[in-house]
């Protein structure tokens, strides 16, 4: 059957209510998206994103609260810096940096989330499978 990109989404507490709200209002988005809820986007360890790519994720999305309205500005700034640093690292070693993105989703933007996810899924499909596992097996 056709290859489907596998995407992991890390949502912080507020943006997870945004994601739930997407379903609540009937916005459908492709199924091969698995969400993991964490208290705050800054908890996500960049090594965990790297592990997700190694285990077969074709794209990883990190949703965070918009820096302006979040009650404490800081964590979103940290996540933004870490994601940008990791994107640069991925670009260096030949993994397209668009496979890792940060989305500013506040708790009432369900529609935005589903539109963004569908658009990103389309792009990732064009990029094709990442298959780190397969490419890392050395010869002989």
């Amino acid at each position, binding site marked *: 059957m056709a290859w489907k990109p596998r995407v*992991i989404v890390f949502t912080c507490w507020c943006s997870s209510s945004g994601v739930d709200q997407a379903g*609540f209002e009937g916005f459908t988005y492709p199924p091969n998206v*698995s969400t*993991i809820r*964490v*208290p705050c986007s800054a908890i996500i*360890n*960049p090594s965990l994103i790297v592990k997700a790519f190694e285990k077969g994720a074709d794209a990883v999305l990190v949703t965070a609260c918009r820096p302006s309205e979040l009650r404490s500005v*800081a964590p979103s700034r940290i996540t933004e810096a870490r994601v940008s640093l990791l994107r640069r690292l991925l670009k260096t070693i030949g993994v397209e940096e668009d496979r890792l993105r940060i989305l500013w989703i506040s708790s009432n933007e369900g529609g935005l989330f589903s539109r963004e996810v569908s658009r990103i899924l389309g792009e990732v499909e064009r990029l094709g499978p990442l298959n780190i596992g397969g490419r890392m097996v050395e010869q002989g």
Partner: protein
Amino acid sequence: MRRVTVVLCTCCSTLLEKIDFDRLRSVFSSSPLVRRVLITDSLCEKNACENLGLKDDGRIVVAACSSRLLEAAFGKPSLVEFVNIREQCAWACGSREEATLKAIRLVKGGVQKALRVSQPPGVEGLKITREALVIGGGIAGVRCALDIADAGYRVYIVEKEPSIGGVMAQLDKTFPTLDCSICVEGPLLSEAGRNKNITIIPNAEVVEVKGRVGDFKVRVRVNPTYVDPDKCNGCGECVNVCPVYQPNKYDADLKPVKAIYCPFAQAVPLKYVINMDHCVECGLCMKACTRAAINLGDEPKNVELNVGAIVVAVGSDLFDPRLKPEYHYGEYENVITNMEFERIICASGPTGGVLLRRDGKPAKRVAFIQCVGSRESGPGIEECSYYCCAASMKEARLILEHDREARVFIFYNELRAFGKGWEDLLYRRCLEEGVVFIRSRPSEIRRIGNGSLQIVYEDTLTGRRGELEVDMVVLALGFKPSWRMVELARRLGVTVDKHGFIQEAHAKMKPLETRVRGVFVAGTCHGPRDIVESAVEGSGAAALVTSLFRRSSLRLPEAAEVSAEKCTGCGRCLSSCEYRAIVREGDKVRVLESVCNGCGACLATCPQEAITLGNWGLEQLAPQVSAMLED
């Protein structure tokens, strides 16, 4: 092998046609990691847990709707992992097949995480010391101490002056009703002095605060007063024989008192103190004192307090008018501040309540200049200082009450009379009594001939420029916290805003709390206020303290902890904590539980996860990610 119970909720069977629950059951009952699979139709019912017999199941994966609704049903999520198969699967997927596959994937992830969840986060049953500390004995502090004492808890008031009372004790009358300030506050002070639950520690300041909410260890340094408070009965014999005079800070340095003095008549505690800067140690007072209470070799003492909550009510200093050279305060005698005016107009003041100029002549023409150090981008503060318009109108009415023929001018920007009773009792009454309001911020004060002053101004309503000759100018000073406030905030671990006021946890949602759990604020220390609002906040803070003490035990939310052997002290986590909850200790770091907000930004900065937060480490999340990516 650890086992997990999987509970699937069909949301009153509405999800049955969206997700193939039988397939879910077969997939997970065959897995060796799952103890049993339960399918129920409404988990959000009142006692769903009991009916399903989940009491002793330990590790549970609940696949249902959004977890916010369910957390209440399951109580604090201990070893329970929530997976959303309604909003994110049933309602968000196109076909039943897709929704089922996604549900399987999400529950697999949930199972892997549930396997590795350790003891529920947060520390249970922390002991609470049901004693409070109020720093600052002004109206806010006293009001707060009284409310806490009335609720039956012990309170310490630490006051840097020899007596509690604060700024309100220095005022003559209070607006808007012009009732005598000390007559209102006096009874409160004496009740505070008498209340067996309240211990007043005067001449003292907080030096060091350690520990967490419910268990603060506070070190207080009591400055020497050279008079033993237990022996002194306030008879005043020593004052008669003391040869040395000194300016009295209570009277804004306008009325001299002896080196051994009591700040004001209604002082609580009514004890005499010696100001060693001026005392010449002649020893006359020692001979005069019948109870041998005086000891010139007194040393500062340290007092250790163990309290459960701290209320900061230290008030705020006023703007230093010398920073506005155009008003020549300190240079021209008759340019005085509104605090000095309060002492002069007050009966117990230096002139016995008669409004006299420095040279003794009565002040017939008085001008008030508003917003000195407020609502400006200069050395003052940007905000409006809230109290000064009302105070100046009150003082104007006092002048006219003392001397019918006096002429009073008020130079204002926007006259703010928004409080209860301010409009009629102050503003309209002033207009009736002939007070002249000029909308202008005077540019300069000049001295002319016989000591009277000339104010150069431009009336922005009429556009006319003019000079006004007056006998006396009163500067309405705004609030401006001094370095002492910033120093105290550093010792408490709380932050200050750009002007130096203490920063509340949240301006709207938590106005009386600070970022350190268990430390509250009341009064002008966290922003411009008037007496009414300071008292209100005193009671508000007291309510928060009593509700904290009312709890049987304390449960702190998840706070990060540092493992001592793993930590190398490199400090990379310090900079990631926006609440500054991580501090260096020796060559390691430590997390202040009462300050940590559980956001976890520090976890990823530590390369070996020496700093951990509940169940949010790689050990729990990596297997969940791997499980979700199994094809």
